[in-house]
């Protein structure tokens, strides 16, 4: 394994409205006032960074773009410093696919992720959570990101794919290289993609002689409308997608939820007293701390909420910012854990709705239930520092907690 180099620095932002940068440390640390400032400036703002990029700032503008695949392509879904030629039609289908090829690729992935399918996986996730808690229940301080939230989604998706849960650290490293370092460093991203492809190719080869009952074999056995098997590159691309999309997204969502509950004793106590409220609270935590920002590429000139948008630019499709739009959500800046009306866009809107949304919801619910059952008292450790991931997926990467009697 080679070293993972540090990404190149961007100049600090002084004018957010005309020069925004979602990799700026200020955005990483506390993006909410920045989004309010951008929204006050207009429904769409632009930066010259990243070779030109727009950002819709309102829920409605985000919905318009998400529902318009004619002008906004998903062939590029991460806003980066570079925009290399697209050489593969199977980068990570269906997330990188546009109509008409999107729908069949998506339909292929949907059946293994229905709510009923997730019910079957739930006992394993509950066991994973408890195995992790067993490992630190007697301690009085810990990094909850490092010891708990980080491991739940990666083990669950490994379990579904049929790859060793013990390889988790490898997957987490690839994801860091692709989603964070890859924004500014092409070579690091390519290296991770190659390593992942080699890893999955070996698992595909092994299943050719000995099929298994898991998601890899499911994809290998899938047939298109004409009855043909998927190309190997399609299977590989979808496996890369499931691994990348299924891990630090939910890791972030669970982490942000615990971070909120550590700082908000009233919400914590209410959820302990009323565990039936946890699914509703999960939706509100998803709204308030949505981890995932996607992207589109403008392929045809158009307007969004009355603002002209030119081809050749990227679009930072910030579902997290949309979910803080006060026009859509009363008290948008507050966490209202029993919010009744909640059309949040944490899993996207339109045809690219997250395939794993049912998985993520189940993992969040189980992770919070098991934690609150066994660790009702916890708080942020004033001696530690909470750090947040940069860029495409936002969540706590260090979460120093005091537990129980240490508080």
């Amino acid at each position: 394994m080679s070293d993972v180099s540090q990404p190149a620095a961007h100049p600090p932002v002084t004018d957010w409205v005309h020069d925004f940068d979602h990799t700026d440390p200020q955005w990483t640390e506390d993006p909410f006032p920045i989004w309010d400032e951008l929204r006050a400036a207009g429904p769409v703002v632009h930066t010259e960074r990243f070779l030109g990029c727009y950002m819709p700032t309102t829920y409605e503008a985000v919905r318009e773009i998400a529902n318009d695949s004619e002008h906004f392509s998903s062939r590029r879904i991460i806003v980066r410093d570079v925009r290399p030629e697209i050489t593969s039609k199977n980068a990570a289908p269906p997330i990188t696919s546009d109509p008409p090829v999107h729908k069949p690729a998506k339909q292929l992935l949907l059946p293994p992720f229905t709510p009923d399918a997730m019910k079957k996986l739930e006992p394993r996730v509950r066991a994973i959570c408890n195995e992790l808690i067993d490992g630190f229940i007697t301690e009085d301080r810990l990094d909850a990101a490092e010891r708990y939230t980080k491991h739940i989604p990666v083990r669950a998706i490994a379990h579904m794919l049929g790859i060793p849960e013990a390889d988790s650290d490898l997957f987490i490293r690839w994801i860091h290289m692709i989603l964070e370092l890859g924004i500014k460093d092409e070579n690091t991203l390519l290296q991770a993609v190659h390593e992942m492809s080699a890893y999955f190719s070996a698992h595909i080869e092994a299943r050719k002689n000995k099929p298994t009952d898991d998601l890899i074999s499911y994809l290998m056995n899938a047939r298109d409308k004409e009855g043909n098997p998927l190309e190997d590159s399609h299977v590989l691309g979808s496996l890369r997608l499931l691994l990348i999309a299924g891990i630090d997204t939910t890791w972030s969502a669970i982490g942000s939820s615990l971070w909120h509950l550590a700082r908000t004793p009233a919400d914590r106590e209410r959820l302990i007293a009323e565990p039936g409220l946890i699914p509703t609270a999960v939706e509100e935590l998803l709204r308030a701390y949505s981890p995932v920002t996607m992207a589109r590429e403008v392929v045809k000139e158009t307007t969004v909420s009355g603002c002209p948008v030119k081809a050749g630019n990227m679009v930072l499709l910030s579902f997290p910012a949309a979910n803080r739009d006060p026009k859509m959500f009363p008290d948008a800046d507050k966490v209202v854990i029993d919010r009744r009306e909640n059309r949040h866009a944490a899993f996207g809107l339109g045809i690219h709705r997250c395939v794993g949304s049912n998985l993520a919801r189940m993992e969040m619910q189980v992770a919070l239930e098991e934690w609150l059952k066994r660790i009702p008292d916890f708080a942020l450790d004033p001696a530690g520092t909470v750090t947040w991931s940069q860029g495409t997926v936002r969540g706590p990467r260090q979460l120093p907690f005091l537990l129980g009697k240490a508080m």
Partner: protein
Amino acid sequence: MTERLRVHVDPDKCQGHARCKALAPELFELDEYGNAHEAGDGTVPPGLEDKAWLAKSNCPELAIDVIEE
């Protein structure tokens, strides 16, 4: 006398968020892809009116209609 309600899912708008199924399991069903449709003819049995409105107000795709008959 209270009005009767009927729910309807627009299949062209539904993207399978499955919020309706989670909030009002008696009123909605999911297909093999996880996309929703109303149970039966969509008639809301007495006592479940609140769940019908709740499902509508949590559908991110605005795919659910609650029709007052």
